[in-house]
């Protein structure tokens, strides 16, 4: 049934019936193409959501301070909440089970100079653990260490773009830069996947910043890293206890919406992932529908093809074609066309997806892709169902008496 001669006969038939070939090929290719693209877009959506979080650790709380809006325990409302070094120590002492690290963050906007170059940058005064929270990647030199905090060293870790702006192609390590009037030695250069803004930052020891600002112990923001093992439920519980702990310590009304605010990255991530998953399921349904439509399309074409060929099949039977060879002729032709055009559609789809890359980022689709197994399975499913759809009319044609088929006009 699969001899070379059979294939030759099929190739000739395909070549000489171009419209028919084109119709069924086009339907299948289009079906697979749309499937691949839709499915790829679904993955692109997920990518976009994951990208929002990819550059920072997700086992982190950011604790912000603000003004109270309710009076509490003798304190008036509209009181500015302050954080200081003792808050860090208290949090560490009270939550050893959940806690992995804490780091303060004091952000300032400073004019930074090196020789003739001068520019304004955000400096963040932090502790060494900050590297985990931001997922800072060191390119040269080192990040801050414990001794820098203890000794209040005037060392700076600068972003890749800060180095590019101030030093051009020259190396910055060991050079001195002027940050807001104080001289700092550059000991490290970092990169960050969070985009250009996150690479125009300078890190310095928080104790040094406090020393410069009249030896205060105030801090702007507290970042708390927790152990990933505690899981989502653990993180939510930890957030609640941390919240009430700080409120109690700072005399903030538990019902006050302001005063302090905790950004729970894990919770945001989870919500976004759920949203993305729902979107993907919807897209998956639409894609599945496309495959079904493709199967229906190819079935209709097969019915049409067999109808159109009834007389020819009658002639072939009169000349000695067996039912098996009649079915074979129809099926092999259809499977051959669906296979070729299915894979063409699949490849075009994959090519389109990979050429898009970040071009549709405005529509929340980043690097759309489909894994090859998924695309291949969908294509094969369409081929198999196309064959089944073709088998039914083919068998009917094979059973029909030659004299009846011949009478067909």
């Amino acid at each position, binding site marked *: 049934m699969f001899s070379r*001669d059979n294939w*030759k*006969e099929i190739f*000739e*038939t395909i070549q*000489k*019936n171009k419209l028919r070939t084109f119709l069924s090929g086009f339907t299948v290719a289009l079906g697979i193409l749309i499937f691949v693209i839709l499915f790829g877009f679904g993955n692109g959506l997920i990518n976009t959501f994951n990208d929002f979080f990819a550059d920072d650790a997700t086992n982190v709380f950011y604790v912000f301070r603000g003004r109270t809006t309710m009076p509490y325990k003798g304190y008036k409302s509209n009181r500015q909440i302050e954080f200081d070094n003792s808050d860090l120590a208290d949090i560490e002492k009270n939550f050893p089970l959940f806690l992995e690290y804490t780091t303060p963050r004091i952000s300032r906007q400073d004019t930074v100079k090196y020789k003739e170059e001068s520019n304004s940058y955000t400096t963040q005064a932090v502790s060494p653990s900050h590297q985990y929270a931001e997922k800072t990647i060191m390119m040269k030199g080192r990040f801050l260490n414990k001794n820098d905090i203890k000794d209040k060293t005037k060392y700076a870790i600068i972003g890749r773009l800060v180095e590019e702006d101030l030093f051009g192609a020259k190396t910055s390590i060991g050079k001195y830069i002027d940050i807001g009037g104080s001289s700092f030695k550059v000991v490290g250069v970092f990169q960050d996947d969070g985009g250009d803004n996150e690479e125009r930052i300078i890190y310095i020891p928080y104790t040094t910043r406090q020393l410069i600002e009249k030896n205060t112990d105030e801090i702007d923001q507290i970042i708390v890293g927790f152990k990933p093992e505690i899981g989502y439920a653990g993180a939510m519980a930890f957030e609640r206890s941390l919240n009430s702990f700080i409120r109690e310590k700072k005399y903030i009304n538990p019902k006050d919406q302001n005063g302090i605010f905790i950004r729970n990255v894990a919770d945001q991530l989870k919500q976004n992932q759920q949203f993305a998953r729902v979107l993907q399921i919807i897209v998956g349904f639409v894609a599945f529908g496309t495959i079904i439509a493709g199967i229906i399309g190819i079935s209709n074409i097969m019915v049409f093809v067999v109808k159109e060929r009834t*007389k*020819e099949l*009658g*002639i*072939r*039977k*009169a*000349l*000695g*074609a*067996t*039912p*098996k*060879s009649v079915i074979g002729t129809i099926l092999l032709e259809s499977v051959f066309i669906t296979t070729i055009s299915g894979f063409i559609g699949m490849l075009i789809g994959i090519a389109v997806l990979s050429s898009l890359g970040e071009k549709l980022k405005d529509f929340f689709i980043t690097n759309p892709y489909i894994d090859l197994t998924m695309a291949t399975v969908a294509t094969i499913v369409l081929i198999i169902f196309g064959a089944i759809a073709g088998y039914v009319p083919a068998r009917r044609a*094979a*059973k029909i*008496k*030659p*004299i009846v088929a*011949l009478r067909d006009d």
Partner: protein
Amino acid sequence: MIEIKDLHKSYKMGSNSLHVLKGINFSVEEGELVAIMGSSGSGKSTLLNILGMLDEANSGEYTLDGVPIKDLNETKAAKYRNKFLGFVFQSFNLINYKNAMENVALPLYYQKMGRKERQEKALKYLGQVGLTEWATHLPNELSGGQKQRVAIARAMAAEPKVLLADEPTGALDSKTSYEVMDLIQKINDQGNTILVVTHEEDIAHMCKRIVHLKDGIIVKDEKVKQVRASEYV
């Protein structure tokens, strides 16, 4: 070669049935050239289609070259059609997207003959019907007579035991009809058994025997003196 006994055939048309062949008895020896005549609707085509295994009788016996033809499955029937029988139709029934040579080679494909051999043989038979130069032409580029000659070459290529022709000249003018009959006579001269259904007296007299059908039975079966078609060409 062919033997039929008490052959009956009726067509079901809704609730009533039309009795077309009402007990046909007849036999054909090897090498005969038989014309089947009769008025329109007398059952000539029905008889020929049953002989050609394109259709089945309701009852009666049919033996082809010593093989009883009865209750065959489609695959078996296809083999017998391929090996024993060649058809020529009034409307030619060539496959329109295949050229003359490919049409002639088609029954050989179903004999599982190799491609090369098939083409050689097809060309040989096209040569015998005088169409070597038209081998690569599609049917719609051929005249009616040429088409019928391709159809005859196709029927002969499989080297069947019996050639069945249903009004082979029905769609042709008289000059072309005689050319086709000349060809059929020559094939018969080589010893092939041929049955020709026709309306036309002159065509019938180019055969060696005439069977008259009327209302589903044979009313007359006579040997005749063959008129050579070449006299008219």
